[in-house]
């Protein structure tokens, strides 16, 4: 089964399965004071150190969470509340227009319920946030800035280090959602300058439901979850031991293999794009031509509906995505493509093929073999739902 949807989730790595399985057989709440508790705590702390070393952070900067969405919510809401509490004038949240919904909707919620003002950072037609746009947006009422490290739909990699630097010139904390970036491009928390960084396990071969927010020691967001005071008192709740060990093992393996793997995926991606272009010459490759994730090919097929393409490929056993958010499976035109200046029809006509650590030439060739008739048929079914 050709699976080209690794940006949605990717198979668990053997290292992670082994670590999770071993941990599941062990007893102990890491907060307990007895031997079993100490044992579990040791597992968690080893994982924390391993993850910190993998991502250029200090162990005390790793806050384990339930995944990317939770980390994004904790960063956005928690940092907003903390900044507003310290200075009531600081209620502006600056986010890029191409963020994942976990950031977009958290910001939207703050605007709707907490009196936040949002400044959207526009992107160019490759999905890149302009540095000047951030500089212009930094008024004196800003609570925080959030710009993703790499876009989950089109794969564009943002200039996070420069953006964090600009924010810091004005003393504004900077958060980045690096869910798609870790293991795909070099990610070093300390060198990035970010104050908070979201990452999650299941995008890089770890278990679902385990993620982390890397958080500088001087960043003290207001917690979303109150309780036992675990994780620096920022994220209460019994720590998920199997999840954290799996997360750390997977991240370590992904980062260890990154250089070779990203070269391999880049070759596969070119093979995919060249092959598709040979049978569908009018295909449009979205995203930045150079600064992009090695494994994401986001393609628009003019005159086709992404839904139709996906369904026809699925019927042929090829699994990919339209790349856009789903609610009850209804595809909305991608807010990312619209922010990049595409029309609604173009935004609906796209597919995201995303490659990962188990991808092979055969997966790519299967797409190339099937895409011609699929595009032709989808084009006959047309685009748009209003005649």
């Amino acid at each position, binding site marked *: 089964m050709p699976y080209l949807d690794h940006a949605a989730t990717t198979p668990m790595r053997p290292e992670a399965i082994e670590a999770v399985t071993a941990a599941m057989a062990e007893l102990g709440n890491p907060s307990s004071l007895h031997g079993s508790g100490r044992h579990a705590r040791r597992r968690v702390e080893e994982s924390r150190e391993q993850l910190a070393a993998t991502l250029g952070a200090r162990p005390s900067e790793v806050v384990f969470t339930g995944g990317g969405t939770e980390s994004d919510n904790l960063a956005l809401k928690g940092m907003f509340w903390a900044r507003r509490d310290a200075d009531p004038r600081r209620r502006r949240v600056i986010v890029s227009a191409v963020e994942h919904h976990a950031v977009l909707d958290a910001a939207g919620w703050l605007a709707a319920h907490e009196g936040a003002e949002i400044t959207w950072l526009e992107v160019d037609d490759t999905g890149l946030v302009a540095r000047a746009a951030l500089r212009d947006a930094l008024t004196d009422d800003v609570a925080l800035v959030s710009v993703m490290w790499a876009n989950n739909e089109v794969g564009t990699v943002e200039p996070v280090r420069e953006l964090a630097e600009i924010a810091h010139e004005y003393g504004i904390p900077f958060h980045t959602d690096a869910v798609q970036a870790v293991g795909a491009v070099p990610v070093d928390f300390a060198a990035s300058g970010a104050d908070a960084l979201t990452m999650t396990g299941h995008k890089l071969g770890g278990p679902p439901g385990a993620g982390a927010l890397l958080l500088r020691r001087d960043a003290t967001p207001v917690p979303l979850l109150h309780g036992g005071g675990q994780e620096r008192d920022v994220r209460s709740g019994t720590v998920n031991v199997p999840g954290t060990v799996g997360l750390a093992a997977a991240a370590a393996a992904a980062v260890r293999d990154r250089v070779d793997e990203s070269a391999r995926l880049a070759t596969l991606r070119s093979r995919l794009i060249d092959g598709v272009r040979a049978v569908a010459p009018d295909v449009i490759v979205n995203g930045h031509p150079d600064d992009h994730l090695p494994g994401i090919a986001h393609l628009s097929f003019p005159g086709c509906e992404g*839904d*139709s393409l996906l*369904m*026809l490929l*699925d*019927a042929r056993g090829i699994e990919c995505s339209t790349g856009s958010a789903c*609610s*009850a*499976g*209804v*595809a909305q035109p991608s807010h990312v493509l619209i922010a990049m200046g595409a029309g609604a029809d173009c935004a609906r006509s796209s597919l995201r093929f995303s490659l990962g650590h188990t991808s092979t030439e055969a997966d790519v060739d299967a797409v190339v073999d099937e895409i011609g008739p699929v595009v032709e*048929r*989808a084009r*006959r*079914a*047309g685009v748009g*739902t*209003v*005649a």
Partner: protein
Amino acid sequence: MKVLAAMSGGVDSAVAAARAVDAGHDVTGVHLALSAAPSTLRHGARGCCTLEDANDARRAADVLGIPFYVWDLAERFRADVIDDFVAEYAAGRTPNPCLRCNEKIKFAAVLDRALALGFDAVVTGHHARLSGGTLMRSVDAAKDQSYVLAVLTRSQLAGAIFPLGDSTKTQVRAEAAERGLAVADKPDSHDICFIADGDTRGFLSRRLGEQAGPIVDVTSGEVVGEHAGSFAFTVGQRRGLRLQRPAPGGEPRYVLSIQPKSNTVVVGPGEMLDAGEVVADRPLWTTGEPPGEAFECLVQLRAHGMVTPARVEVLSDRVVAHLHGSQRGVAAGQALVMYDGDVVLGSATISAAHRVAAGT
């Protein structure tokens, strides 16, 4: 065959899809998202349009082991069904949105897209029989939906499969339970799916704005009340008129006609609603041809309405049904469907009803 099963999340469409699988078809399930802003949970007996209904449909597809997708037809549904519904009421007619949805959405937008994508037919859970291009009533007279399908053309019917026509609703529910479909005892949906609270009048006044006008008694010619918009009334309606003056004889009065241009609602005694002759436009014949220039048949003048024997006269762009006996409360905008026994002969849209002596 490769077929697309339209799955609302209800019991009928789930069993219809299951039967299509059993018949050996290659079945793909599709839920039609008809609302641009669906509610999370279903409330009351209205609807097929919440996320919960979409999930019910998805669970049924899981149980059947068929692929499942959601198609967003909200924009098309708004244009072809909801806006049409409002425009028809504004013009003093009484539309049937289910019929319009079959005509414009299920067996047009969906069928066309399905055919283009390589499917051979669309399967639905309608209670009606279809064999060799002939549309017939369901064996379950109480659940029969042939009336709202009679507007389909021959080519539309050629792309349709109705697996439930030979079963009663009770049988369908029992079969769903046997198959382990969780929707087996889900309540029937009825009323208008896009008016969540069931308040059609409120929905129309939000869309059209309140427009005060007179209610006039047909006998005396006097103004006997006031209304907030003639669109909120339907011919034959008795309740909710809030008339200020009773009729001289004290007998109840009904809406006899709606005159949208003067924004007038005309009321009068019930017997004036008895129509003996019904004119209906743009006839559509199931076989492609009318059975004759004039013929005897049974006519049905509204969904779940009584059938009446009639002689139908075919003119160039309309038909005139001379009812043997009379029917009360025939509303313009509804369909006149002609039957030979259980077999649908054709349909047309009612434009006028006349109170003439029966049998002419």
